[in-house]
Every structure is written in C-alpha cells, then in structure tokens.
C-alpha cells in the first residue's frame, strides 16, 4: 500500500490532483482511492487530500493515514500546518518553496532529518499556466522522485484527464509537469 497526503489550500487543486493521480494509476491495473477533508472550508483555507494505491482492492476507509509521501503545494503551509503529523521514519516530503532545502529546514526545524525534495510549484504554475494552481507540477515532481512512471506516459495520461480544458491550458500544464520533473531536487 502506497499512501500520500497532500497539504494544500482550498482552491489550489489538491482534491483534483489526487483524483487525477488516482485516474492515471488506475489505468495501469492498480487499485486506487482519492479523498479529501472538506468541511465548510472556503477558498484559501488549509486542507488535506489523500491517495491510497495498492495491488488489491482497497477496503480501508479510515481517514487516519501514516503517509509514504507528503506533498505540500502551498509554500506557507510548512509553517502554519503540521505537515509531519503521523509520519513514518521513511516518509518522503515534496515541498513547494522558493527556498533552498537548507534555508527551508532552517526556517522550519521540524523538517530536520527528513527526506525532503523541493520544487517551486507556485512559480512554475504562474509562469506556465498563468495562475497559481500548483497541483499538476507537484505530480511532475512526484514522478521524478518516486520513479513511478515514465514522464512521457504520465503526461499522455494527464492530457486525457485534462481533455475537457482548452488546448492552451492543457499544453501549459504539460510544460508545468515537465518543468517540475526537471527542477525538483
């Protein structure tokens, strides 16, 4: 079982990103689950979304999760949310930030000793899609870190999922995914 927790703000597309990732993975024969915590949160409020991936049908519907990966797609949430809650020794973090890894850990000492990857999904989204929607770039970075799928296969799959959007937006997302794949460190 592979488990992922997303930290996001409502409106940044974490729930959509989690469902998109689940959709891609499902086409390769694996079983998936994607959900989010909602409540009455309005756009901008901190929220979390979740993915589960397994070879067998996923029966577990508990919301509690000790994630293998933590995605932080908004740069402020490493300070205001508890992004390391319920972590495991080998939990990997992919964090959106303009800071270097060293400066990030200095600013948030809780990340000391964790396996951390950084990528500036907000800047990438702004420069490619034209809006700060950092969900698809985060998935590009995840493909690099996890080596889950070949990036070309992943982009082709995402093209299908984003299919109903205008071609310009789909193309911009492809560039964003590739840039995050190349830039994550």
């Amino acid at each position, binding site marked *: 079982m592979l488990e992922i927790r997303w930290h996001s703000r409502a409106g940044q597309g974490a729930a959509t990103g989690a*469902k998109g990732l689940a*959709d891609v993975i499902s*086409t390769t024969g694996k079983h998936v689950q994607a*959900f989010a915590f909602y409540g009455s949160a309005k756009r901008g409020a901190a929220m979390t979304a979740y993915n589960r991936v397994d070879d067998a049908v996923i*029966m577990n*519907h508990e919301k*509690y999760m000790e994630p293998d990966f933590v995605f932080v797609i908004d740069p402020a949430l490493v300070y205001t949310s508890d992004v390391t809650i319920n972590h495991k020794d080998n939990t990997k973090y992919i964090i959106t930030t303009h800071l270097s890894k060293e400066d990030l850990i200095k600013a948030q000492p809780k990340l000391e000793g964790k396996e951390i990857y950084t990528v500036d999904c907000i800047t990438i989204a702004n420069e490619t899609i034209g809006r700060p929607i950092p969900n698809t770039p985060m998935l590009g970075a995840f493909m690099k870190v996890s080596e889950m799928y070949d990036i070309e296969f992943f982009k082709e799959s995402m093209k299908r999922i984003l299919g109903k959007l205008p071609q310009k937006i789909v193309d911009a997302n492809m560039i964003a995914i590739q840039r995050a794949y190349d830039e994550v460190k």
Partner: protein
Amino acid sequence: MAFDKMELKDIEVWDGNFAAAQALRQCQIDVVAAYPITPSTPIVEGYAKFLADNYIEGEFVMVESEHAAMSGCIGAAAAGGRVATATSSQGFALMVETLYQASGMRLPIVLNVVNRALAAPLNVNGDHSDMYLGRDSGWIQFDAFSPQGAYDLNFIAFRVCEDHGIRLPCMVHQDGFMTSHTAQGVETLSDDVAYNFVGDYKPMNDMLDFEHPVTHGVQTEEDWHFEHKARQHNDLMTKVFPKIEEVFADFEKLTGRKYNLVEEYDMKDADVAVVCMGTSVETAREVATEMRAKGIKAGVVGIRVIRPFPFMQIAQALKDIKAVATLDRSAPGGTVGMLFNEIAGSMYNLEKRPMLCGKIYGLGGRDLTKAHLVELYTELQANVDAGKITTPLQQFIGVRGPKLSFL
C-alpha cells in the same frame, strides 16, 4: 434513440456521487426534481449536466425546497415517468412528510441519500442520522459500502421498485464524503448493457393514460387506512426480498458482482463479529482479516438492505457467534442504537444467544480507525474468554473526554 451515448473505460475512477449520477444517466431518468444539498449535490448536478449535454431525454425540475423536490417526484411518478432525485441530512428531514406519501401511493421513485449528520450543531460530514430518520417511511433502503455499490445499487433499485408486484420507492444510501467524495475504481457497464438491465419503464395506473383515468392521493379514514397500510407492510415483508434476490442474481450473471441482503465476511467459523453499515463494513473486513492473523476468529456482517430488515437472515448469520457488537453511526437519543435493537430482536429466539453490546461511533464524520476496530474485536474476544459481557452494554467510540458508557 435521439440522445448521445458515452464511451466509458472498463474501470473509471469515480467518487460515489459521480457513480450515482452516471447510473441515473444510464437508466435514462424521465424526471429529476431536486433541491441540491451537500454532500449529495453532484448527483443531481451531474444529471443536469448530462441532460444539458444531450446524454439524456428527460426533465430537470428546479424547486424551492426538498419538500417540493419529493413532491415533484411524486407528481411525475404518478403521471407515469421514471423518477429519481438525491438529498442529504436537513434536506432529507424536510422531505420526510412526502416520503410517506410516496410509499403509501406506491410510486417507484429512487432517492439517492448521501448520508450526513443532522444539526444542531450544523455539520456537513457523514453519519447515518438521516438514514435512520427514514427507516419507518415504508421505503426499501439499500446501503452502498463504496462508490461501486453506489453505482450498482441504483440499477438494482430501479429493477426492484418498478416491478408491478412491488411498486415501492427505494433509497440508495452512501456515506457522505467517505463514499460520495472518495474516488475509487468503479467497474462500469456500457450504456446499452446498463439500460437493458433496467429495461423500459412500464407505467402502472399512470395519470397520463387518458383511457384509464385515475385519482391518486385519496383520503381514507379509519374505515380504509389500516387496510392500505397492512397491504403495504405485507408487500414489504413478503414480496420485496424474493424480488431483490432475483435482481441480485441477474446482476451477478451480468457483472460477476454478487450482492446479498446480508453481506457476511468470514462468518462461517467466527467467534466474534461486528454488525455495521456503510464504509465501516469494508474497513472492518480488513481489520477482521488482520485479527485472524493474531488468532482471533473475527467476522463482519454488513447490512445491505436496511428496509425491509433481514431479520431471519441476520439470525442465521449470527447463530453460532459467541460475541457480537453493533456499530450505530447515529445518536440514539435516549435508548440503544437502531442496529442494537434490531439485532437483539433477530437473535432473541436463537438457541445459543450470542453476547451483544452496542457501540455509538463516527458522529458528524468522526473517523472510525482501524485501531478502534482492533480494540473492539479484542474486547469481544475478552468477553468470550470471560464467558460474560465485561463492559457496559453501550459505549461510545472515538469521542473526546471521559469514557462514555451506559446500561
């Protein structure tokens, strides 16, 4: 057919709401009268979009309340159309008056209930309070444990309720957010296969049949009312289960997916068992398997059909069990939980009555964790080892503050 068909992958990643909306599209619902409410909104929103995009020949009626939504459905069903809608929580509560009208008038409406807590305090998350509120309304109630169930049970519901020997409305329940907003793989049916399973709607006593004029919604006082209610109860008790089992069998032939009135998991040789509904059934199955690895013979009973209640089937499933816990996801308001009551009644005349205790859990969407269930099975095994119930009969799971238990 004048409408467009949709190409679906064999497995689509859908949440429970979208799965239900797709089922309504494939069943070609004539009329949806709806007043959307979280978390069921995407079901009727989905129907409206499919309609606007020419995937359905039908009518979406916007109304001013849930009471009006069900009233519109009743009118459309009496007129002679295939009718469905969806609601949750406060909306369901407002609909209650008309639920009794629909069942008493014997109108085959399918209501998707995305289960959510009832205020106060206001809460949009999933528990079974609204489901319990409908349990005396004379409707057939199916319960989905996953998005796949929410999809499949809609087809099954139409086949059952539209049968001229049944003609009773059906609810299809799914857990708010835990099913409705959780995307999982759903094995799909093609549009033609799905529609053929449900079949063309066959009207009965429809008001649009001008050669056979009828008056619907008549008044009866003490001279006739009892006979009407007795007839309805008789049909619920004697005709519905055979029909459901026939439809379940047909559905299995078509899809390979097998549904049962009572979903037993590892019950054959179990010592301890939990009885529950919704997503908790699947989580409990996973934990039961893990308990067996630890030497505790654990089983799970999931209630697939809540009304009519599978009284005898439950007794059969639990007859050799030593200790049983019921899991009620609704505040019982001064008594034991509904499942505790029903299960106690089912088991009362068994030769070896299992020990029974009841748990109240998950109110307002509070998480039921695997750790809770491990603790519960361990406690049941302790009762078996002690040969008696070692805890109070009613306990709350997962609530903060001093431990709450009663009786």
